[in-house]
């Protein structure tokens, strides 16, 4: 599968993802996005354009949003990575995930992991954005389903949820209680 003559040199790469250490042996050219999905089987991070335009593969590197398709896995060793898997679960969604659910902020869901990570980091620094600021905050992420209206609403709703939650603890949402609520 590799070159005809010389086998491609491999690197043992250990990274910390969502607080868990993972190790895999990969060539230097392995994109971080592919490393997460193929080598670590963390398929929450989605891969769209693979040249930094669409934003689907955005993860948090030491808390800051970056394109995982524009880094190599061998460069991620010294960093703490957060993917969408680290921002909540189906039973205990993070504030941004909960807002997307409430506001119909997604349709097919392909772009959603990149929006969740981007908005999570944005709200850390800008906890109370206006609608216009919310629109600007998501301008680096492409969505082909929603027309963005409900994503903008989701940003604003996530800010509300964050403000009402105890920011020190991860918000725990009772799925059964929420099931009976009417959508806004």
């Amino acid at each position, binding site marked *: 599968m590799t070159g005809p003559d010389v086998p491609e040199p491999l690197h043992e790469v250990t990274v910390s993802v969502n607080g868990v250490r993972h190790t895999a042996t990969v060539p230097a050219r392995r994109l971080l996005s592919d490393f997460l999905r193929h080598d670590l089987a963390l398929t929450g991070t989605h891969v769209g354009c693979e040249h930094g335009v669409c934003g689907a593969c955005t993860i948090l590197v030491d808390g*800051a949003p970056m394109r995982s398709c524009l880094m190599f896995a061998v460069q991620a060793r010294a960093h703490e990575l957060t993917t969408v898997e680290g921002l909540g679960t189906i039973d205990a969604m993070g504030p941004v995930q909960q807002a997307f659910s409430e506001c119909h902020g997604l349709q097919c869901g392909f772009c959603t992991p990149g929006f969740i990570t981007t908005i999570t980091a944005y709200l850390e620094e800008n906890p109370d954005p206006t609608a216009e600021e919310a629109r600007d905050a998501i301008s680096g992420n492409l969505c082909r389903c929603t027309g963005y209206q409900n994503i903008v609403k989701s940003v604003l709703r996530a800010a509300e949820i964050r403000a009402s939650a105890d920011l020190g603890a991860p918000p725990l949402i009772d799925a059964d209680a929420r099931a009976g609520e009417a959508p806004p």
Partner: protein
Amino acid sequence: MPPCGDRGRPRIEQVKPAPFVHHAPTTVAEAVEVLRAVGSHGKILAGGQSLIPILSMRLASPEHLIDINGVAGLDRIEVRDDCVRVGALVRHTQLLQDESAYAALPLLRQALVHVAHPAIRNRGTTVGSLAHADAAGELPSVLALTEGVVEAVGPRGSRDIPASAFFVGPLETALAADELAVAVRFGRFPEGTRTGFAESARRSGDYALAGVALAITLQDKVIRSARASFVSVTDVPDVLDLSGAIGSYAAVPDLDAVADAVRAHVSPDTDIHATGDYRRMLVAELTRRLVTELLSR
């Protein structure tokens, strides 16, 4: 059907950057030694926000990547009396948020907010953007307008390359294949200088169809100098002196003469995004509005 993992394998070996040897020097001297050894087969990897797409599309396939992210001491911003010095590992976001750099040279932040999106700015480096020398990039026009200097280190020693000699052509600089740009120095403007940056893109964060960086120096209400450099409408970011065209009095700048001078100076190409004529009209209008904005502050 084979399981998903097996089906995925061939693609991630093939439709990806070509194989390369990854070098991770920890000092400038080590980086230069690798550059000397590999010469034109090597490429510096800093932020990678322009380089990695190029590798992924296989527009380039260097055999060696010299990853300078582990080199100590390159991540500093230093404000001096005559310049702001930016190390090769300073990320756009770091420079954008630096209050002392903003106070010394507001044009930096004024331009940096237009560089791509936050996720790109968090990783991409200011010096890397200059070394990439894309005519559609914002930073080359800033380096030109501030009469900045690139500090290069190579096997033959260190040298300073002034902006006017640094940009040779689109994506082409005066850096030799075995030289590393370790820092740039953006020159500071004289007291009384107002600066601004404007660009127009189809979508927020996209490559600009046209852009302009402007510096007007006033003394009392008299215009002492007015200079501009441009994005996406010239092959290399040279400086246009508008001091003659704009006139002397800040209250009544000759906007038509400014627009005429800009139109005559630029040489935009036609591509799928816009015609050359449209870009010429656009950059003249952007400049006209920016002049008005700066003088009404």
